[in-house]
């Protein structure tokens, strides 16, 4: 199998484009941002952003590989933050209860999303658009009804703070970075080394054929929706614990940021193709592009333009690599 270590073999992997894109933005900001950008404090800056985004981007990417989309994550982030803040902040109950209820709600919304998608013929974009607004409404309505405010404070101490919302490694890196690495490793096993991953790719390639091949597509779809909404609630919860406060608004940027990271990471928008490592690199690329600008001397008013152009380049690079992957065949003596 030495073929896989050859250049051609590497280039046809779904994460090849994402990896080169990452190197490109690192070089770009290394030149314009200087050394501070690559030193621990600078690195923590984009790793923290990447970690919060990445925990959500991976399950969102999995859904995209399976041919579905979940945009309700944008509401699940403030939902998760507010749930834990109301339970453990406003009512002053145990933080562990707050965490348990938050994650349970995350699972429930995921079940509901998944069930609606498989039971109705409505595209998941529309279903989750509905749940996006519905959950936003629930967060705003319930929070204001219970607390008479749109912002709730939360003070967490002890092990819960250390596990979910603190800094590690000389106080720069959010503990979320560790969660992200752990979760990403679990997903790599799930998608690329267990048989379930094969099912997800098959579902995204052709759902009917996948079902005919005996894959429990409906159960898998629900499971993936549970992953994404629970992950989003988890991120929101950790943010509330870290920042000692939860807001009703916010979180919507996670929708597009996650989708962008996933696409930059080499996942095909139409499903059936991609990799966890690719999404991982794509998320870091996005975070670097998003945060790197603060280490440069560019006028901040141009940051959106720079973000847009760099991301477009990354996606174009991916397309090129996917074409290469499809047309690639071993050159030696084809008979």
């Amino acid at each position, binding site marked *: *199998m030495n*073929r*896989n270590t050859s250049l051609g*073999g590497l280039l*046809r992997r779904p994460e090849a484009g994402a990896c080169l894109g990452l190197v490109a933005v690192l070089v770009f900001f290394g030149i314009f941002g200087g050394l501070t950008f690559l030193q621990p404090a600078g690195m923590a800056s984009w790793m923290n952003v990447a970690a919060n985004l990445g925990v959500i981007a991976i399950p969102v990417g999995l859904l995209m590989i399976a041919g579905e989309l979940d945009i309700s994550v944008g509401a699940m982030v403030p939902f998760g933050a507010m749930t834990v803040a109301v339970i453990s902040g406003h009512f002053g109950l145990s933080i562990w209860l707050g965490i348990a209820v938050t994650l349970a709600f995350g699972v429930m919304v995921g079940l509901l999303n998944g069930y609606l998608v498989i039971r109705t013929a409505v595209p998941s974009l529309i279903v989750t658009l509905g749940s996006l607004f519905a959950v936003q409404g629930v967060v705003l309505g319930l929070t204001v009804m219970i607390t008479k405010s749109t912002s709730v404070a939360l003070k967490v101490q002890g092990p819960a703070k250390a596990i979910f919302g603190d800094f590690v490694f000389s106080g720069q890196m959010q503990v979320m970075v560790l969660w992200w690495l752990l979760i990403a490793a679990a997903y790599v*096993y799930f998608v*690329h*080394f*267990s*048989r379930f*991953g*094969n*099912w997800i*790719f*098959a579902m995204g*390639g*052709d759902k009917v*054929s*996948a*079902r*005919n*091949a*005996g*894959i429990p597509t409906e159960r898998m779809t629900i499971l993936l929706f549970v992953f994404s909404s629970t992950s989003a609630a988890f991120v929101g919860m950790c943010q509330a614990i870290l920042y000692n406060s939860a807001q009703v608004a916010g979180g919507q940027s996670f929708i597009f940021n996650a989708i962008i990271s996933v696409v930059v990471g080499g996942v*095909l928008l139409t499903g*059936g*193709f991609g990799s966890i490592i690719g999404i991982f690199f794509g998320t870091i690329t996005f975070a670097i592009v998003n945060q790197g600008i603060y280490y440069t001397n560019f006028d901040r008013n141009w940051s959106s333009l720079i973000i847009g152009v760099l991301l477009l380049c990354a996606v174009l690079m991916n397309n090129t690599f996917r074409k290469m*992957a*499809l*047309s*690639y*065949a*071993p050159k030696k003596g*084809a*008979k």
Partner: protein
Amino acid sequence: MGQETGRTILSLQGINKSFGPIDVLHDISLEVKAGEVLCLLGDNGAGKSTVIRLLSGVHQPTSGQMVMDGKPVLFRNPREAADHGIATVHQFGGTFPLMSIGRSFFVGREPTRWFGPLKLYDRKKANEIAVKAVQNFGITRIDDGDRLVGGLSGGERQALAIARAVHFGARVLILDEPTAALGVKQATHVLRIVNEAKKRGLAVIFITHQVMHAMAVGDHFAVLIRGAVAADFRKGERTREQITDLMAGGETMADLEAQIETYMDSHDGHPPQAVSA
């Protein structure tokens, strides 16, 4: 499998199918035998696809009976048909273009191995088996199970799908227009594979509207016209022209050809010029 050859595996007996008020199939009776190719011919809209959908469990007959190995069967969904050993391969192979050959081959039936406490997908084994299975059908050009299915030619994708069906124990192989989208060379490839499947004792149902392709591999032919079996005959009982006429729905094509022939006879073998009669 060889001893099965010639035995009827699956038969349709007086099948009717209607969707609401529209009758799509009337009184269809067909049978397929092990080691034989049944060619299902017909123009677009003649009801070929509906027959396939009944056989593969997508639809159920309104009346009439399907019999398999002498016992009546009812396929309530594609899964049940598959469990009875009926495999359908569609025009584009029904495979997953962006998956590797090995992964695509084993979708839903992945081989696994243990790595410590973790159960892993056995990529090496999957690739080996898949490549070997395809090569057994004469496609020796495929030798790397990591290649993406989308990078294969149309004929190779058909071969992969057929090899997959055979590997997982299909007894009835339904090929839905496998040569329609292919060039001459690729189509020849596929026909050779059909013959190979036949040799292994599978009952093959070959759907096409290309008479030449049908005649190249068929043992038994059925022509569908407007949802009914218009003709049912064995190899050598009809000529190509007769079959073409049947498919066109009447004598029009023969009339036309006859006219052209008489014209050519009386004009020293020149075909008619584009002039008004």
